[in-house]
């Protein structure tokens, strides 16, 4: 079965990427959570100020990239677990390719849209 589509082609690297991206996402969630908890009744200007700062932009983009990497490793695993000739016969390879292209496209759109959103904020 194709391993070319695995993110790093190494189980170890995939494993580390998944853990690392999880840490980034956890920190990002905490960061947002504490911001919203500490600041009550925010208006648009404050939000733009917060998300528009250089460090928050970088952090947000990092979080978007982490989501994509984390998602890809996970979705790839699910695909290679379940979309197999054992269940789908000869169609499995085509089905899995379609699934992987679909996932990749979706994640690519997330990244593209996320970067546009955060990087191009007026600030």
């Amino acid at each position, binding site marked *: 079965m194709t391993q070319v589509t695995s993110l790093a082609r*190494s*189980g*170890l690297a995939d494993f580390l990427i998944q853990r690392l991206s999880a840490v980034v996402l956890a920190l990002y969630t905490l960061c947002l959570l504490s911001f919203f908890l500490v600041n009550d009744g925010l208006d648009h200007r404050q939000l733009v100020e917060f998300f528009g700062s250089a460090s928050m932009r970088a952090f947000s983009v990092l979080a978007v990239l982490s989501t994509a990497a984390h998602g890809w490793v996970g979705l790839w*695993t699910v695909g290679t677990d379940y979309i197999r000739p054992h269940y789908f016969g000869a169609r499995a390879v085509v089905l899995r390719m379609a699934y992987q292209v679909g996932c990749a496209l979706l994640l690519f759109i997330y990244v593209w849209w996320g970067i546009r959103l955060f990087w191009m904020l007026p600030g």
Partner: protein
Amino acid sequence: MQVSVYRYDPDVDEAPQMRDMSIDLPEGKELMVLDLLERLKEQDPSLSYRRSCREGVCGSDGINMNGLNGLACITPVSQVAKRGKLALRPLPGLPVIRDLVVDMSQFFDQFEKVRPYLINDQPPPAQERLQSPEERAELDGLYECILCGCCSTACPSFWWNPDKFVGPAGLLQAYRFLADSRDTASAERLRDLEDPFSVFRCRGIMNCVNVCPKGLNPTRAIGKIRGLLVRQGT
């Protein structure tokens, strides 16, 4: 007592089926599931299963009892029967040869893959390769495996990728030799396990630990292998 047994003879049957048999249990005496099977076989001599030692040593009578894998010979009927009913099936996930007998080739192919023997490139000493008691203690909980296959056939990751995921039994043995102070092939062994399937398909569900009749813990061994891989790779 009602016993429902998985029956399949590929020469005769179109498809496998569960067949009900009833049997009277002796009063005041605990039977093992294997004793039950022997009695059922007296009723129907065509019933097939593997057995040998009848004392939990050979690992040949791993079967699925009311949904739980285990050795028929050391599992008391009262422990697995529910409301006087017991369903006996072959170990899940492997091709069935007949009734409760499965084809273990995939299981042993994965076992072979981890090179389950000592590799040492040093010239052999005059007498023997010694270990300290502490070094020897590292192998406790690893060497006791009897290769019954209960763990790997309870593992979803092994069901999905039996050709690529080594499975808990094989990985326990992989770690048994990684942990052996006399083995000099650790680096190669780890390199062979580094791909996305061999070790990293383990999702830590611990079905393997739950069923091992020897009380071993493959998940912990897998965690140790991961740790070694991370240390070697970074």
